[in-house]
């Protein structure tokens, strides 16, 4: 049987007290780590789920702004959570102070832990150790801190619920779009239904626009009318920035929603020109010097045609312009011709040319290319420089391709072809045969022209 000295007994009891304080410290630090980790997870999951849901629910710009805000808030939250966890960590001294407060030990544990390393203790030191050890039940780890799991588990559960709610949104939003994009690559829209805005240089929206030259000119004029400062706007850095941001957000949304392949499919947009009189008159009145120049060239060409009485029009590029017939001004014949032209382009082209030559320029409502059947730009010298320079333009279309309805398969509405018979007083136009000038009249004609 061994007898311990007074000091040894005090040291032994001190060890017991410090061990119990150590267990309190362990639990507090465990909670601090849990706090940091669980809160970080909760913030990351909640932000991720919100961004994921936003990719389906909101427009690209809102998605970009909201996503950026969420990322910033999330980063701040993570930093805050880690910082809070770091501040919650407990040294032995802090654990003793917390135990003192919670068990109302009035500084006993703090004093013991603070003075334990020292050697020169007060005569009341042993009394303090005895007194503190006698209250060991009051500062047991389970009593000082009952929780083993941090309260941060609740935010984490909330974040998981949010994430769980985000996945059904993706299912709901995903299905219809897949059905719509499956079977349609060609789309024909009327020029009057278009809303135009300038596009960025090099912008590729996955859409190829085709139309006959007249329609393309109308498109150009419309762009000039609807966006008078188009060139400036296209060069506007803010617009470019917004457009790029929109595209970037759209790409990000596509990646998140898994719809990237569908959205990258090229859509062939065929422009049709319903060509009402109002638009034609507006085009005539438009103070566009280049357009006037085309008119003059076209008129001169028509006079030459009359003089020469020849039909020799250059063929148009039907491969790129399937609806290459000029507008006849509100009758809708262009659309009919376009349909026929798609079935037999060469035949239709010659027939159309003849029709133009016969009915020709006598018609007063034919537009600038009436009676010609070709683009003056390509007929008379080099093409004029584009108003938009090298930047081009983008067409924003509100319509969506659908796979149902009477006008499916990418055909615009074409009114029926109507031939009005001539009256009894009318005679069909016939070409006048070329004849030689009589010798008696030659001097007279020459004098008139010299005058």
């Amino acid at each position, binding site marked *: 049987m061994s007898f311990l000295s007074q000091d040894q007994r005090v040291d032994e009891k001190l060890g017991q007290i410090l061990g119990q304080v150590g267990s309190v410290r362990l639990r507090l630090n465990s909670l601090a780590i849990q706090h940091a980790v669980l809160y970080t997870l909760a913030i990351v999951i909640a932000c991720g789920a919100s961004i994921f849901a936003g990719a389906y629910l909101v427009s690209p710009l809102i998605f970009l702004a909201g996503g950026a805000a969420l990322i910033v808030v999330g980063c701040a939250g993570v930093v805050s959570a880690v910082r809070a966890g770091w501040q919650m960590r407990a040294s032995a001294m802090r654990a003793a102070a917390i135990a003192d407060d919670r068990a109302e030990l*009035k*500084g006993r544990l703090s*004093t013991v832990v*603070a*003075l334990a390393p020292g050697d020169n203790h007060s005569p009341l030191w042993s*009394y*303090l150790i005895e007194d503190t050890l006698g209250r060991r039940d009051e500062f047991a780890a389970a009593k000082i801190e009952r929780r083993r799991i941090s309260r941060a588990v609740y935010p984490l559960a909330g974040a998981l619920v949010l994430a769980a709610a985000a996945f059904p949104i993706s299912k709901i939003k995903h299905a219809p779009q897949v059905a719509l994009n499956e079977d349609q690559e060609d789309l024909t829209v009327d020029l009057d239904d278009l809303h135009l805005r300038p596009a960025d240089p090099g912008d590729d929206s996955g859409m190829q626009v085709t139309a006959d030259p007249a329609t393309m000119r109308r498109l150009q004029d419309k762009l000039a009318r609807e966006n008078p400062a188009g060139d400036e706007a296209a060069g506007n850095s803010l617009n470019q920035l917004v457009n790029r941001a929109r595209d970037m957000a759209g790409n990000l949304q596509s990646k998140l929603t898994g719809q990237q392949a569908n959205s990258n499919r090229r859509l062939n947009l065929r422009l049709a020109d319903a060509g009402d009189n109002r638009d034609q008159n507006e085009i005539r009145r438009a103070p566009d010097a280049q357009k006037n120049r085309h008119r003059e060239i076209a008129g001169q060409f028509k006079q030459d045609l009359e003089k020469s009485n020849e039909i020799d029009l250059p063929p148009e590029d039907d491969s790129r312009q399937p609806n290459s017939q000029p507008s006849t001004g509100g009758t809708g014949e262009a659309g009919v011709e376009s349909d026929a032209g798609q079935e037999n382009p060469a035949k239709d082209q010659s027939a159309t040319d003849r029709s133009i030559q016969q009915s020709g320029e006598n018609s007063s409502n034919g537009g600038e290319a009436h009676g010609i059947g070709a683009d003056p730009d390509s007929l008379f010298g080099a093409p004029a420089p584009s108003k938009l320079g090298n930047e081009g333009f983008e067409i924003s279309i509100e319509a969506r391709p659908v796979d149902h309805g009477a006008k499916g398969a990418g055909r615009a509405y074409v009114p029926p072809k109507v031939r009005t018979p001539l009256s009894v007083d009318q005679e069909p136009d016939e070409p006048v045969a070329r004849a030689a000038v009589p010798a008696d009249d030659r001097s007279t004609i020459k004098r008139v022209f010299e005058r």
Partner: protein
Amino acid sequence: MSEVQAETLTVADFARTFRRIQAEIHKMIIGHEQAVEELLSALFAGGHVLIEGVPGTGKTTLVKTLGLALNLSFNRIQFTVDLMPADITGTRVILSGEDGRREFTFQPGPAFCHILLGDEINRATPKTQSALLEAMAELQVTVSGTTYRLKPPYFVMATLNPIEMEGTYPLPEAQLDRFLFKVRLNYPDEGELTRIISSTTGPDEAGIEPVFHAAEAPERVEALKKLVRQVIAAPAMEIYAARLVRATQPQNSRFVTDEAKAVHDEMVNRYVMFGSSPRGAQALILGAKVRALLDGRANIAREDIDQVAVSALAHRIMLNYAALSDGIDATHIVERVIKSVRAAKV
């Protein structure tokens, strides 16, 4: 002998003895529980007490009763304008010996006792007031170049009459600082007053039974005072006391250094001219030690320091005219300082 007693005394002994003395005093003093506790705390902490109260609140009776309960020698000096220092410390007088020779012999004054009551100390001149300084601080008296030691325990209680200020000499700051606590005796409430009337106007007087025997009383009191000094103060508690004292010092004071680490309170900066001296921190810790022993602990806690803060610091704080005009008391300042330091959690 006192060392042996200090080792054998326990925390429980201290608390038991303290409560017995308290009970004996309350046989004579009705009410004033907190004042009595602070008085005894100052006694066992080794300090002196300044008692402030209106006339008739039992200041003199309290001190007298304390002397009787402790069974220690007790003297009372009524301070007046014409009181001289020699009337307190003693003086040399010519005495005739048995052989007929006449020689100067030191005749001890009323300061030579264990418990000294200086009644209405603010009525004496500063010169006379300062005669107590050496006795209170050094436990010695110097007369005509000769120093005489006072026997411990030595406990000075001075009373202040807050009214009738004409013809009084406010205590100098240096002398105020030498009092460990300043205890305020308020008017008794109705119940206490009724008991005072019945106990003091009847035929029987309350008999005080001394707690100690006369022969051993000084040693017992000294042993208890030594036990108080052995109470453990953790470094954190000492830091807390130091912060409290520093927080009483206004930020704009030219005597304040290292102000970056101090807790500053707007009220202190506005109303305090001079804050507490380092003696205030000593008073805080010593008073807290007594409180800890009374609570059965061998260590002090913040609660102990807070409980004695007003008594230990209020009379050490000099207020300015703004405080006087706004009716701000030093007690308010100390309570505000405690809140500020606690909230700072530095």
